[in-house]
């Protein structure tokens, strides 16, 4: 069974727009094709350890050939997925070299996850199993 169309949170869309409307407009199509490819093969990239059996957090390094930027210095795409339920959630897309320290990246990912949680809670205020 194929995976569903990835869910893109607002925080992810903002990062996407910032990168391709102002910073790397020439790479928009090639990166879009890579993101679309995640639906076909969501198990690509590195899997972060320690997130359980069916839940994955994965990371893909993306080079921008239009700007002669290697994978090492390029973008990072992070997504969350569940193999059983077949959902994919785009968490973050950022330019590694724009962040001076890894702690700032951690903070940014935390912020994105926080806003995704509040979005889900707003959209589904009454959880079926909540008391």
């Amino acid at each position, binding site marked *: 069974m194929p995976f569903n169309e990835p*869910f893109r949170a607002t925080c992810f869309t903002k990062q996407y727009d910032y990168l391709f409307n102002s910073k790397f407009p020439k790479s928009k199509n090639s990166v879009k094709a890579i993101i679309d490819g995640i639906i076909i093969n969501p198990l690509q990239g590195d899997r972060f350890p*320690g997130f359980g059996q069916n839940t994955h957090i994965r990371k893909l390094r993306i080079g921008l050939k239009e700007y002669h930027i290697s994978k090492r210095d390029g973008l990072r795409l992070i997504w969350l997925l569940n193999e059983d339920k077949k959902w994919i959630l785009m968490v973050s897309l950022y330019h590694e070299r724009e962040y001076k320290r890894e702690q700032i990246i951690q903070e940014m990912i935390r912020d994105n996850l926080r806003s995704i949680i509040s979005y889900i809670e707003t959209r589904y205020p009454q959880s079926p199993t909540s008391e």
Partner: protein
Amino acid sequence: MSTITLDEYKALTAKISADSDVVASLGKSVAVSMSFSSVFIRSLFLVILSHRLLKSMNRMESACFTCNINCNITFDFKNKLEEIVTTWDEVIKNKEQINFPKLILRWENDLLEQFENKLENYWIASDKEIKDFAHSISDKLNKHALQ
């Protein structure tokens, strides 16, 4: 045919592991000596290089032991060595000119890149809050399946 004694070989490997610049100069001398005996030089060069790569990898891996995360990503020493052998054989077969110092730098950069990538992953995977948030999102989405 060029020859080297065991003691000279040991002295050479010790010198190389002590000083990375020597590897670059070795590259140049290997390029010059190839006409004497490519097979012999190939073996010697590979032994020395693998020793050096292993040393770099050990250094990187011991840095990783401190993270206490059961990480599945490993430094692919075997693949790297196979790539080196293939590159070497291609060069000999095609009688190409090769810049060994540059090649060594490229191989070492590849290793460094693997290490950097592993570190990047560590920073995210070791963050407890990120882990908790991810689990929370996963639980919520599993219940609603993104409807």
